[in-house]
C-alpha cells in the first residue's frame, strides 16, 4: 500500500490517478497511524512551503521520520522534495525534515519566476529512481523555489542556474518536477519508485 499524505494543500487527484494507473494500491491520509502501516510514502505538494506546518501539527513529521528510519521508501514531490531539506527562504522559521542540511531558496537569475514548463534532466547514471530514463529527457516543472545541487542530487536542471531536479539517498527520494504530469518519463519515475527495493 502506497500512502499519499494529504496536508490540505493543492490537488492530489493527478498524483493518485498516476499511481493507480501504474498499478499501485493507494491510500490517502492525514493520520500518522496510517503512515505506520505504509509500504511506501509519497509526499506530494503544490503550494507554499509554509503548508508543511500541518505535518508537524498533526504528528505526521515524526511518523514520516520513523518510516524512513525503518527503511520505508519515501518520495517527495515538488514542495515534498524541498521539505527534505533544512528549510526554505519561502517560509523562514518553518523547519523541513532536514535529512539534507542545505536550505531551499528562490530563483535569483532574473528570469521569469515561477519556472513553469518542460525542462530537461541531466541524470546521474547511478540513480535508481531515474533508471531507464534517457539523459536530457524532459519533465514538467512549476515552482519558484529550488534546492541546491549537492551530493544527493541525481538529476540537475538548468534555469539560468543549475538546481536539484531529483535527489536520492537510499530509501529517501525527491523530485522537483511533477512525475504525474511528465508523460511517459514521469510514469517511469513513479514505476521505479514503486519497484524500489533495498540493495
Amino acid at each position, binding site marked *: 500500500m502506497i500512502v499519499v499524505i494529504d496536508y490540505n494543500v*493543492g490537488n492530489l487527484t*493527478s498524483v493518485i*490517478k498516476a499511481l493507480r494507473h501504474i498499478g499501485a494500491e493507494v491510500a490517502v491520509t492525514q493520520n500518522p497511524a496510517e503512515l505506520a502501516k505504509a509500504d511506501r510514502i509519497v509526499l506530494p505538494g*503544490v*503550494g507554499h512551503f509554509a503548508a508543511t506546518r500541518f505535518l508537524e501539527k498533526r504528528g505526521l513529521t515524526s511518523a514520516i521520520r520513523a518510516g524512513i528510519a525503518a527503511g520505508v521508501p519515501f518520495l517527495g514531490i515538488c514542495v515534498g522534495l524541498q521539505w527534505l531539506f533544512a528549510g526554505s527562504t519561502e517560509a523562514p522559521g518553518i523547519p523541513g525534515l532536514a535529512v539534507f542540511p542545505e536550505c531551499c531558496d528562490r530563483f535569483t537569475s532574473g528570469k521569469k519566476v515561477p519556472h*513553469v*514548463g518542460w525542462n530537461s534532466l541531466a541524470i546521474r547514471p547511478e540513480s535508481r529512481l531515474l533508471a531507464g530514463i534517457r539523459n536530457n529527457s524532459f519533465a514538467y516543472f*512549476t515552482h519558484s523555489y529550488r534546492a541546491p545541487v549537492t551530493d544527493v542530487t541525481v538529476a540537475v536542471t538548468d534555469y539560468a542556474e543549475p538546481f536539484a531536479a531529483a535527489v536520492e539517498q537510499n530509501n529517501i527520494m525527491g523530485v522537483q518536477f511533477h512525475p504525474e*504530469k*511528465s508523460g511517459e518519463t514521469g510514469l517511469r519515475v513513479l514505476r521505479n519508485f514503486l519497484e524500489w527495493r533495498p540493495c
Partner: protein
Amino acid sequence: MLTKRIIACLDVRDGRVVKGIQFVDIVDAGDPAELAARHAAAGADEIVFLDITATHEGRSALLDSVRRTACQLFVPFTVGGGIRTADEAAAIFDAGADKVTVNSAALAHPELIGEIGAKFGAQAVIVAIDARRVPNRSAAEAEVFVSGGRKATGRSAVEWAQEAESRGAGEILLTSMDADGTRAGFDCDLTAAVSQAVQIPVIASGGAGNAQHFTQVFREGKADAALAASIFHFGIHDVRTLKEELQRDGIPVRLAC
C-alpha cells in the same frame, strides 16, 4: 533548457469538441478524451479544455467530460469556460484538472483569483484575457473584453494582467480578438507588451496559422507558450510536425525521445 510550450486547445460544447481539431482518420472529431490523448501522444505540452456550453444542463455534464478526458492524460490539463466561484473550480480540480482558467468572473470579482490560489496553489490559476486593439493606440493599450468578447470593460490588457499577477495568478492566457480565427499570425506586439509587463508566464492565443507564426510569437512576442486549436486541423497536421519545424527554426521545444 526550459522549452517553449505548445498547447492544444479543445473547444467543447455539451461534451463534444465542436471546432478546430480533426484528424484524418477520425470521422467524428468530437470526443475530447480521445483528442486530448492523441495530442498528448503527438507531443502537446499541455491540453486546454475550453467549455463553451451555454446551458446549465450542459454544464453539469461538463464534470463527467473533464473526468473522462483527464483519466488517461499525464500532461498538464487545464479547464476553463464560465467558472464563477472557487467551489466550481474545486469541482473541476476534483474531476482531474490541474489548472483552471478564469475570465469574466475574475474581472467582476478579482478576489476569485486569490481564493482559488489559496486552496490549490497559484500555479493552478490561469487568468484568461481577451483583448482587442484600440485604433491608433499602442498594443499596450489594447482593451479587455468579457462575456465571450461581447462586452468591453474599459481596462487595458497590460494593466489587468499586472493586477491579476499581483492577486496571485500563476499564468496569463492572452487571446487577441483581432487575430483570433484569422490564421494570419499571433498579435506579437500585444503579446510582448503583456509578457514584458509581468513576471508570470504568458500563453499567446489567437491567430496561429503556421509554424512561422509560432516562431514569431516566441521570438518577437516574448511568449512563454502558445495555444492553438484550428491549426491542428488546417495546414499543419499535428503537434509533432509543428515542433519539428520549430526546432529547425532554433526554438527550444520538447521532442519525444
